[in-house]
């Protein structure tokens, strides 16, 4: 129960920061996907099922929160899959407790964030292309995906450790 509350609080915090504060630091109008980072962190700690639900919830919130005007469900679908992938990575990496490792290696975290950011932004862009939601071309999409990937990797070392620590702390027994 507590992890759900934590998830809700973190997602809302990420969303509000992303919309209201980070736009001052936007590069070509593109801000870091804090919500995506939260989802990746949650999924790495709690596994793919929780990751999927977290991704879905964060995505729905991103789809419905005020400045959003795209079709609802696009971020939900993208973050759902990001949560699933990150969850699988977390599960795989902690599969062998025999190694003595209890935590996901930092390099794996960053790589997961990079992959998750790429997959998430690309999926969001692809659904937009398929549904003709904003009428933009692929040429405009690729730089946006690249910049947001760079942002997410840049912020991952600062955002992911506290997020993962928080998810471990709320429910230590079943955390990985």
């Amino acid at each position, binding site marked *: 129960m507590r992890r759900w509350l934590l998830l809700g609080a973190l997602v809302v915090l990420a969303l509000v920061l992303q919309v209201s504060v980070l736009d001052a630091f936007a590069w070509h109008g593109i801000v870091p996907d804090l919500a995506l980072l939260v989802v990746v962190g949650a999924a790495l700690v709690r596994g793919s099922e929780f990751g999927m639900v977290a991704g879905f919830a964060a995505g729905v919130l991103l789809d419905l929160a005020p400045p959003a005007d795209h079709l609802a*469900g696009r971020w939900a679908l993208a973050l*759902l899959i990001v949560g699933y992938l990150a969850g699988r990575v977390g599960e795989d990496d902690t599969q062998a407790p025999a190694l003595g490792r209890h935590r996901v290696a930092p390099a794996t975290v960053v790589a997961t964030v990079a992959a998750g950011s790429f997959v998430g932004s690309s999926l969001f862009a692809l659904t937009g292309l398929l549904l003709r939601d904003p009428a933009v071309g692929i040429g405009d999409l690729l730089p946006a995906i690249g910049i947001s990937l760079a942002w997410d990797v840049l912020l991952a070392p600062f955002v992911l450790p506290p997020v993962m620590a928080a998810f471990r702390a709320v429910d230590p027994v079943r955390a990985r």
Partner: protein
Amino acid sequence: MVMLTRPPTERITERVNRRGGLEPARGPKRATIVALVLACAVLLVLDLTGPVLTPARRLVGEVLGPLESAAATIAQPVTGIPGWFDSRADLREEIDRLSKENGELRQQVATIPYDANRLAAYDGLVATAKSIGYAIVPAHVVGYGPAQSFERTVTIDAGSSAGVEADMTVVSAAGLVGRVLRVTSTAATVLLVADADSVVGGRVGSSMEAGFVRGSSTDPERLDLELLDQTEVPAAGDTVVTWGSAKGAPYVAGVPIGVVDSVYTSLRDSTRRARITPFVDFTALDLVGVAVPSGTHSDRRLIDADGVIR
């Protein structure tokens, strides 16, 4: 190794293990995946088909909107950080740019009434062109004849290269101005109807009675109308228009001249005359038009008889 496909039995044992917390679970339940993906699809379809999700957006907005504005307010010191890196040269450049823009905007604001008047004048000319059925060469009055020479003439900035010739009618948006006396290639001299030498064939609109409109030598703001039929007495407020000449020279037909102000009897020849207040203010002429036949070749854009500018 990740095994993506597993036999159901193994899956069940895994779930049991997971509940016992002995072994890490591997992957979500298939039902969860299906349910979540379906939920996304439902959301997409709902939003595609209509405004079904508006209440949901509204609800989320009601909750998150205050949070967002609060965050933006609190974070103002932080969001100002990028501004710290503006260099002095950047700021100076911005000041230059803004003051230049400010000057331009001030100028625009200052000329708005003038532009509006000009636009109204052009609109009026278009209406005049439509009503008299002639194309019109727009021109500006650039010089007034001196009053001490006792003639009422003006110079306009359209000449023979604009298609203007002698004995053409000059109108404004309000009504008849005069006729062209002579032209040069770039300018023309116009005799105003208020000149004492000017005689225009006029017609009282209500009775169709014809007469002659002359400039008044005594009152520069008035015209005199002498009717051919002395038994007809025009009523005050009747409109006087031109009756027109052959081939439209020097005056085209149907151009309003003025309204009848009062009727008086001339002591000298005991004829009845009417005093006309002209529609045109001859002391404040700016944009006028010269009526030319449709299709005239001109060095400027004409207002054609159908109101189209070409």
